[in-house]
């Protein structure tokens, strides 16, 4: 497969975004927005509901809590989180689409909503069927090994070792059909010529335990999710799936360093409202969620999750560009992989 085919507009949506944490904190993306904004006709007159299509303990649950807290601190409006996990986000999305479009219900969702639409256009398109209020987390993935691993120590020796195992080497992953992880692994294996067995773990703890306990040889993950293992010196990254090295991982080879020529896919999380919600209410929600991104509590949270290494903020238009580009990229990949794109 020619991976260069996938160099599509995502490049413009996320290009030149690697920067240091100090830059991010010096000027937050929404500092120019007004410090307060009156809602239309006293909106909201009651608490907002935030539908979260995942459980409270995972990455989505945590970002939903951090954003809800920041919006409440900023506006004084309470937000009730309603977790509806299941079906890889489908259940939460379906429940959200059934709520009245009055601006009182918002949705948290991740890039899975975009890849789901790419595979099946019957599923809502987050850029067109919803209004993105803000994308507040964008992150990249890395490949990790155990720090005390002695069969290989870096990316090059890992690739050599995997090739020598003739398909017996393993990597823990979330390898659901068409997932960001599976597509990215396809890019990597096609580009390097290595064969590696992906073991699918849908929950974080067993996935990290599999690497820590030596059940698998490597792990595919985002850095914020394994920060405690990195800080404790248990895991070490051997490849950053980005074009260039972020400052925090200056010693880890990037795609360019490893000679891998494909556009990286990103994990992103954001907040949405119905496209038919009253316009003035949407404007107020856009202000509240975008402004809350710069609240100290939210910035601190993002920093603790390594979400400040690339630009994590997208306003409504930026979010639409990112989502649209992501959908196009996934669709091209799916067709190339022979998946049935509906």
């Amino acid at each position, binding site marked *: 497969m020619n991976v260069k085919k996938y160099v599509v507009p995502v490049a413009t949506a996320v290009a030149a975004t690697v920067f240091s944490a100090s830059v991010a904190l010096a000027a937050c993306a929404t500092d120019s927005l007004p410090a307060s904004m009156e809602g239309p006709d006293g909106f909201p007159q009651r608490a907002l509901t935030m539908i979260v299509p995942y459980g409270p303990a995972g990455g989505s649950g945590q970002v939903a809590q951090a954003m809800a807290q920041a919006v409440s601190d900023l506006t004084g409006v309470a937000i009730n989180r309603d977790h*509806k996990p299941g*079906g890889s986000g*489908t*259940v939460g999305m379906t429940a959200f689409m059934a709520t009245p479009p009055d601006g009182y219900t918002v949705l948290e969702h991740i890039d899975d909503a975009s890849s789901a639409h790419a595979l099946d256009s019957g599923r809502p398109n987050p850029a067109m069927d919803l209004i993105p209020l803000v994308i507040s987390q964008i992150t990249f993935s890395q490949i990790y090994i155990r720090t005390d691993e002695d069969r290989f120590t870096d990316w090059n020796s890992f690739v050599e070792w995997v090739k020598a195992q003739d398909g017996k080497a393993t990597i823990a992953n979330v390898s659901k059909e068409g997932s960001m992880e599976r597509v990215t692994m396809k890019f990597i294996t096609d580009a390097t010529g290595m064969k590696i067995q992906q073991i*699918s773990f849908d929950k974080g703890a067993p996935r990290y335990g*599999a690497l820590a*306990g030596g059940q698998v040889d490597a792990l595919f993950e985002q850095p914020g999710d394994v920060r405690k293992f990195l800080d*404790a010196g248990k895991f070490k990254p051997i490849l950053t799936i980005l074009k260039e090295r972020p400052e925090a991982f200056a010693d880890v080879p990037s795609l360019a360093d490893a000679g891998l020529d494909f556009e990286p896919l990103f994990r992103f999380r954001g907040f949405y409202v119905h496209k038919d919600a009253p316009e003035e209410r949407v404007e107020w929600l856009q202000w509240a969620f975008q402004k809350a991104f710069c609240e100290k509590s939210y910035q601190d949270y993002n920093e603790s999750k390594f979400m400040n290494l690339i630009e994590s903020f997208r306003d409504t238009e930026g979010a639409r560009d990112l989502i649209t580009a992501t959908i196009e990229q996934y669709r091209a990949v799916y067709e190339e992989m022979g998946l049935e794109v509906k």
Partner: protein
Amino acid sequence: METFSNFIGGTIALFSDPIGILIFVGGVIGGMLFGAIPGVSMLTLAAILLPFTAHLSAEHGVMLFSVIYCTGVYGGAITAILFNIPGAPENAPTAFDGYPMTQKGQAGKAVGAAVMCSALGGTISAVIMMAATAPIADWAISAFGPPEIFALVFFGLAVAASVGAKTLWKGWLSILAGLLIAVVGLDPVGGIERYDFNMPYLLAGIHFIPTILGFFAVSEIFVQAEKKATGVYKAPKVSVDFPSLAELITHKFAVVRSIVIGFFCGILPGIGATLAAFMGYNEAVRWSKDRAQFGKGKLEGVISSETANNAATGAAMIPLLALGLPGGALTAMMVGVFQMHDMEPGPLVFINSPDLVWVVFAAMFFANASILVIGFLETKTIINLLRIPFQFLAPMILLLATVGAYAVRGLVIDVVVMFVAGVLGFFLRRSGYSVAGIVLGLILGKIGEQTFAQAMQMLHFEWSGFIDRPIALVLIISGLLTILGSIYGAFFKKHHSVDHAAGE
């Protein structure tokens, strides 16, 4: 010795701090109350409290959650015994014998056993946790991968098939029905949609909590209502007779066995107290000479289940604290508490915050011990709920179960599932099938399918790979022997099983 002095240090720190004592007592009582109400479990309490822990110190926040965990696991036993409503899935096996004991007028004895065994299982588990957290955690994750967990599930199902049904075949059909229900929704590895009938909500699968509430609570109300309508209903006798110490000592092997099983299940990430309780119960049946009496109000059933689920609590803290790997939903929320204080559970916690670790260890020890005291006081009062006439009690139970089913995910389909399970359970129970088997098939089916798929990926789709993994091999052989033994029993000891069936 160092462990003991650390424990004393943690105890002094815990009880010399008035706010700490307040939080400890609040957690003990809150966990018991929320654990006892179906649907509104200790998880509900934890989710409500999570944001507020930001205003507590890290020590207080983590301690509060660990205390809620210990007492919440016990709290669900009370409604399981009194009304056949397990407060949480890990209390489901407690209802198997606990509720029949209530019907026989031995509610006090059953609740008393649950109190004592929960306290004992939890306390011993806490002691082992204190003594050997780091080495046990390292051993568990390196020795137990997906092939071993799958083998454990296979073994559990093999044992369970011979429990609770009139015949071996009905036992297996019950388990298989549970396994079939477990495959509804997205497959756990490839994300393939199965049996969703174009209903998006079915993609999330059939949740086991509404299923348990339906099979146990709702179907029981139907059974009792039928008795009421036909004039054979007898209100359960209210008794507050506690089991004697001598009675419990006769079950010492069951207690020790359940502690080992519970602790072992607790340390495996993603497994936890529910499997512990079912396995504890199954093994009690398997080792008993008096198998036919299980499910009809045998004290040993309550003892095995409640000892095992509380023994899992201390064990579940081991992978959480030593490795940062939460075993279940509540321990996952504890990760949230740590993170609110800019900490991550894991090896660094022992180095950076030893005070926190030892206050939490001490709190868990004393929370389990306090089950004994508060549990007895609580029991003396709560058993009187049985005095409420059926026509008032039944609607209350139905209402609670409905709220409980809906509260799991906020989905109406869960309420529908509960009532369908209730009606099915009503008919299945009369025909000699095991509703417990269906529930176990559903719970273990989800874990088993996922770990089987992962195991096959790891073993490169070669069955022979299990031979190279001794623990998995031993468990699979044990499971096969169990199946062969039960088939032998069904074919060659015909009159024996007929006697059992006649006794149902």
